């Protein structure tokens, strides 16, 4: 009897007042503060705008959103749960359940767009297309291979950061493009909520990757870094084909590729690595940047000396005792 009770595992309750890693609480707070549902966005205001798109533009948009739905589905049902098994703190597991659920919200959101704007038959066609498109299926397979239970915890995290911080962007480009032309602006608002969430997910998983990596001996660290760059290039190869197939008819492929390079470098930075693509091919169309972060570029480049960039903030009373932000 005593022998049995000695080896019985102790079930542990998560105590948020005893943290092993403060980043867990920081990210939990950020993710829960950012919680949203698609019902928050008045998608029906885009009905007229949708009707103004040409049939091929509508088809492209539905396909792109179906491709994004697939990635969100993978991250919701396989990716985030796979990372849970490797969590090093109970709080990390809790954060990952939030990430998994928000991916389900994202996947569900595209269906809200579809049911508001599109005909059922067109949407069914696009879902069939997503199952038959070789590039989309190939990149899903590459990621799913790394989510396999036998894969190393570090490689799972790399695949996950690449999905969150790189693979989505061939799709995110299109609603930002429409929005820069004052089209589907409510849909773009919804996509921006998704884009914001993915930034936190990529950052957090990348942070956990860095913590795990620094515990490895030098030789293994080098091997993991090689793996990361190789996987990125494999995914990039598939992304270029996918991008060409989708965007060539609109003449947007080169523009999208700059956006891909820019985001691939950011994904690598989330992992603590330097960028891979030279800056000259990461020059994202300013209209897309402005669509991504409206108003974010005002008054900050003092160094460039351009125009009215030097604006001292309006005087705000500052108390020494309590400087509350």
């Amino acid at each position, binding site marked *: 009897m005593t022998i049995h009770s000695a080896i019985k595992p102790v079930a542990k309750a998560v105590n948020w007042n005893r943290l092993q890693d403060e980043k867990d609480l920081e990210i939990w707070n950020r993710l829960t503060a950012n919680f949203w549902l698609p019902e928050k966005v008045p998608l029906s205001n885009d009905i007229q705008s949708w009707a103004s798109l040409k049939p091929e533009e509508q088809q492209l948009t539905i396909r792109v959103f179906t491709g994004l739905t697939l990635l969100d589905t993978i991250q919701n049902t396989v990716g985030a749960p796979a990372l849970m098994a490797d969590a090093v703190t109970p709080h990390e597991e809790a954060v990952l359940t939030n990430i998994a659920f928000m991916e389900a919200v994202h996947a569900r959101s595209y269906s809200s767009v579809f049911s508001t704007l599109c005909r059922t038959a067109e949407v069914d066609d696009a879902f069939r297309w997503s199952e038959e498109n070789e590039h989309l299926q190939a990149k899903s397979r590459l990621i799913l291979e790394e989510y396999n239970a036998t894969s190393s915890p570090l490689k799972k995290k790399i695949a996950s950061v690449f999905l969150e911080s790189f693979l989505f962007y061939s799709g995110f480009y299109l609603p930002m493009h429409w929005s820069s032309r004052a089209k589907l602006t409510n849909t773009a608002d919804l996509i921006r909520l998704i884009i914001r969430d993915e930034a936190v997910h990529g950052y957090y998983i990348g942070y956990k990757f860095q913590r795990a990596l620094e515990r490895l001996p030098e030789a293994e660290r080098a091997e993991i870094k090689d793996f990361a760059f190789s996987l990125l290039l494999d995914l990039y190869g598939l992304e270029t084909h996918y991008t060409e197939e989708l965007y060539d008819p609109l003449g947007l492929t080169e523009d999208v590729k700059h956006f891909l390079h820019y985001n691939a470098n950011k994904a690598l930075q989330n992992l603590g690595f330097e960028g891979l693509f030279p800056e000259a091919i990461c020059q994202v169309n300013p209209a897309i940047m402005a669509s991504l972060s409206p108003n974010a570029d005002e008054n900050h480049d003092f160094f460039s000396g351009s125009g009215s960039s030097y604006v001292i903030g309006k005087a705000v009373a500052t108390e020494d005792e309590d*400087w509350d932000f």
Partner: protein
Amino acid sequence: MLWLKWKRWVTDRFLLLLQETSTGLASVQTKSAASPELVSGLVYFSSPSGNTHRFVERLGLPAERIPPRASEPMLKATQPFVLITPTYADGEGRGAVHKQVIRFLNDAANRTLLRGVIASGNRNFGAFFAYAGTIIAAKCNCPCLYKFELAGTDSDIARVRQGLDLFWKQQLSISQ
């Protein structure tokens, strides 16, 4: 080092494109590291994710780090400085400035020496990209000098080096 090979491969592959478009970049990228005439300092905050730390390392200028944890004694600035800080804002812009940075700036002596702020963030946060810079500039009545993403790019590094150099020279000429 397989990853270096990949990096060279990518660079070579795009070399043609680079030669066509990089004339503007080349001029800023060749600037050397520390400027000896620099009169004042840098203070920065970086959480264990290390993006800002990597940025400051690449900048190659002397800099003091605000301790990441509240349990450690707070930094005391001794000379005029520019602050480099990441952003922690949620979707409404709340919580943009890290508590340790607030603690540091709550010290009036530190605040008096603050000359400008450089903030980092992620454009995925839309209008609140690098919002810590906007908040601190407004609170402390100093300019927000620059914003960059994550650990910054090579041209961010070059611009900040050149910009700081010029900025301190201007500051010096104002104070004389």
